[in-house]
């Protein structure tokens, strides 16, 4: 008879890419966060005065805000933050050709499959090693079309007006404590501009990776999709395992202008000691279309709620998310949709898998402001529990100020059922494979939206984790 312990042994949380490359950073700020560190970062980046002011103000906001208590357990975080380095820079400047990238870094990328992605000409590869872009390429025809795909630092240097006009407008510094922290110490990330009417068929991809023990990573990404433009941006990350706590807090701002379409795809597979607190938000203008496709694996605690602010009539926002929590992990994720204008539509589909003592929380907000008549929103969150010790919670917040709006919410919790396992095994499928199959089937609605390579990678990850889990 199949035993219950085989169900317990489904291991998706063993971190598989736990290799470490020895890095020799050129510059590293003091541990912890202080005005001095912020000034050093800004000076190192040779930033204009307004950015230094922006950072220093943000630091004050950060210090004035209490640690949030509404989500995951952050009680250890003060201590963690006093021990990390807020800025590490592996190289003095950006590299533009693959040949110029140091062997050590190439080695790391090779393990992550970057060269392969390059071979397949998967658009411009912006690879972030430690805190900064070290390798950045952009396909020529895009340059010709006026597409900008730069590191955030180069965005500030080379496109100062465009940058300043949009930076910090989607996620203001005071939005939350960690957005304020990021605003003070941000380093690395992408700056993307898609000009009016330009449509990109291949996605823009950025890989990045935290590779310095006790190093915080504060990437900042700003994406502007101008009127009628279409594009897809993909970001995947993976980090090596370290024994001490680590911290990541990114801010992603996206501006989708009139009738533009944009999709932002992330798969994050942080090591199991990582605090991952990310603020990502898009504003969507009239007739615009924004999709967040968000996969969260690994980390100790992730708090991340991709948001769409539907500002213009007929704007559409979509959030698809997958979370996996293994032992000792808490994925507190979900999405926010804010309907400001009439005829706006949105949908959130969230799927989570919890195993062992893992915990998944869906936390979502659907807000419809007065005047956003004919707004429609649908939220669906499904949780799959692998064992009796796994936990899932759902916090769907719905605030509706407009009478003429249609908001739906559906939630389901299921366990990998004895009947499902029996059905599959009774066809000769070994139990661990049967479990992998059920899990893959559960995430299929989202996996099928991923670019093929990522879907294969995700499925393979699940398969790998099932191997040797029985008996």
């Amino acid at each position, binding site marked *: 008879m199949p035993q219950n312990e085989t169900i317990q042994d489904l291991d998706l949380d063993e971190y598989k890419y736990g290799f470490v490359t020895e890095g020799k950073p050129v510059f590293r700020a003091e541990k912890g966060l202080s005005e001095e560190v912020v000034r050093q970062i800004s000076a190192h980046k040779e930033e204009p005065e307004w950015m230094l002011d922006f950072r220093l103000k943000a630091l004050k906001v950060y210090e004035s805000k209490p640690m949030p208590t509404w989500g995951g357990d952050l009680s250890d975080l003060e201590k963690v933050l006093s021990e990390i380095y807020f800025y590490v820079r592996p190289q003095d400047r950006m590299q533009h050709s693959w040949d110029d990238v140091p062997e050590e870094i190439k080695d790391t990328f090779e393990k992550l499959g970057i060269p392969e992605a390059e071979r397949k000409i998967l658009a411009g590869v912006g690879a972030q090693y430690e805190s900064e872009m070290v390798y950045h390429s952009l396909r020529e025809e895009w340059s010709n079309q006026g597409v900008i795909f730069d590191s955030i630092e180069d965005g500030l240097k080379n496109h100062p007006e465009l940058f300043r006009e949009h930076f910090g407008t989607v996620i203001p510094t005071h939005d939350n404590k960690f957005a304020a922290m990021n605003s003070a110490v941000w380093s690395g990330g992408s700056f993307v501009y898609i000009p009016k009417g330009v449509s990109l068929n291949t996605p823009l991809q950025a890989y990045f990776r935290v590779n310095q023990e006790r190093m915080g990573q504060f990437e900042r990404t700003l994406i502007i999709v101008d009127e009628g433009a279409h594009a897809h941006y993909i970001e995947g990350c993976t980090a090596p395992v370290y024994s001490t706590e680590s911290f990541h807090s990114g801010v992603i701002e996206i501006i989708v202008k009139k009738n533009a379409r944009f999709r932002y795809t992330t798969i994050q597979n942080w090591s199991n000691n990582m605090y991952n607190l990310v603020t990502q938000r898009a504003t969507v203008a009239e007739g615009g279309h924004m999709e967040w496709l968000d996969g969260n694996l690994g980390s100790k605690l992730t708090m991340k709620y991709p948001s769409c602010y539907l500002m213009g009539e007929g704007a559409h926002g979509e959030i698809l998310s997958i979370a996996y929590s293994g032992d000792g992990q808490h994925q507190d994720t979900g999405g926010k949709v804010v309907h400001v204008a009439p005829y706006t539509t949105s949908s959130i589909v969230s799927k989570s898998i919890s195993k062992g003592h893992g915990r998944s929380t869906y936390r979502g907000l659907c807000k419809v402001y007065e005047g956003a008549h004919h707004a429609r929103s649908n939220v669906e969150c499904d949780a799959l529990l692998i064992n009796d010790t796994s936990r899932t919670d759902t916090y769907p917040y719905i605030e509706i100020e407009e009478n003429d709006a249609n908001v739906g919410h559906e939630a389901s919790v299921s366990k990998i059922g004895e009947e499902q396992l*029996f*059905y599959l095994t009774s066809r000769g*499928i070994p*139990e661990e494979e049967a479990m992998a199959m059920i899990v*893959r089937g559960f995430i299929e609605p989202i996996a099928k939206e991923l670019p093929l390579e990522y879907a294969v990678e995700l499925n393979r990850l699940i398969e790998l984790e099932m191997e040797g889990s029985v008996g």
Partner: protein
Amino acid sequence: MSAAPILKIAGLQAKVADEVELGILKGVDLEIKPGEIHAIMGPNGSGKSTLAKVLAGHPGYEPTDGSVTFAGEDLLEMEPDERSLAGIFLAFQYPVDIPGVSIANFLRTAVQARQPEGEDLDIFEFSDHLTERMEMLEMDVSFAERHVNDGFSGGEKKRNEILQMAMLKPRLAVMDETDSGLDIDALQIVAKGVNKLTEEDPEMSILLITHYQRLLNFIKPDFVHVMVNGRIARSGGPEVAIALEEEGYKTYEGQEAPSTNGSAPAA
């Protein structure tokens, strides 16, 4: 037909796994030889579906006494997947939904499990074979892309069971109330599929579990057993089913099953 039985059940007793007492099977004896079609009929709660599940290794039931030998092996010692590979197939009364998993993918995995160690299934051969089987069962090939039993009608679920049976080529197919929930047209389609499979492989044995006689109009059994209160109360030829149709199960009500050697009578 070979003389040695493919399945030999002797004095089998079983209960619900988590219950202390409440035996459901109270000493079942049955022998099935290669190529034979047996039907077990019985009123609700007589234990006939439990017998099907115990044969396939359902974790919700626990054998407490007796033995089951399948092709010379101790069946009760085997895991459900091992039983399947050994040649047992259970057509479920209530096939289970596996959302997000296509029938093609599911069957490919099940067929792959039958490959010799380290050998990969030829995906093109598999695909051709699947198409051929679906054509034989008069199914649209697009069916293979649907998710296993997810949103299927009763008839579709049962046809999906027969498709799996056709792909996995069991030595013994146990069909648990395959007729339940089917209208007469669907029943005929399913029966036709089963008959094609038995024609194709005359050595394949079938154990039909049914409440009603009507299925037996379409799939002709060699032997019919009546199960009452966890035991086989009567065994005979097709005439037993016909008698049941006329008399109903009330003849057996309150009756303790006679002590029986359980083997099917000689053909």
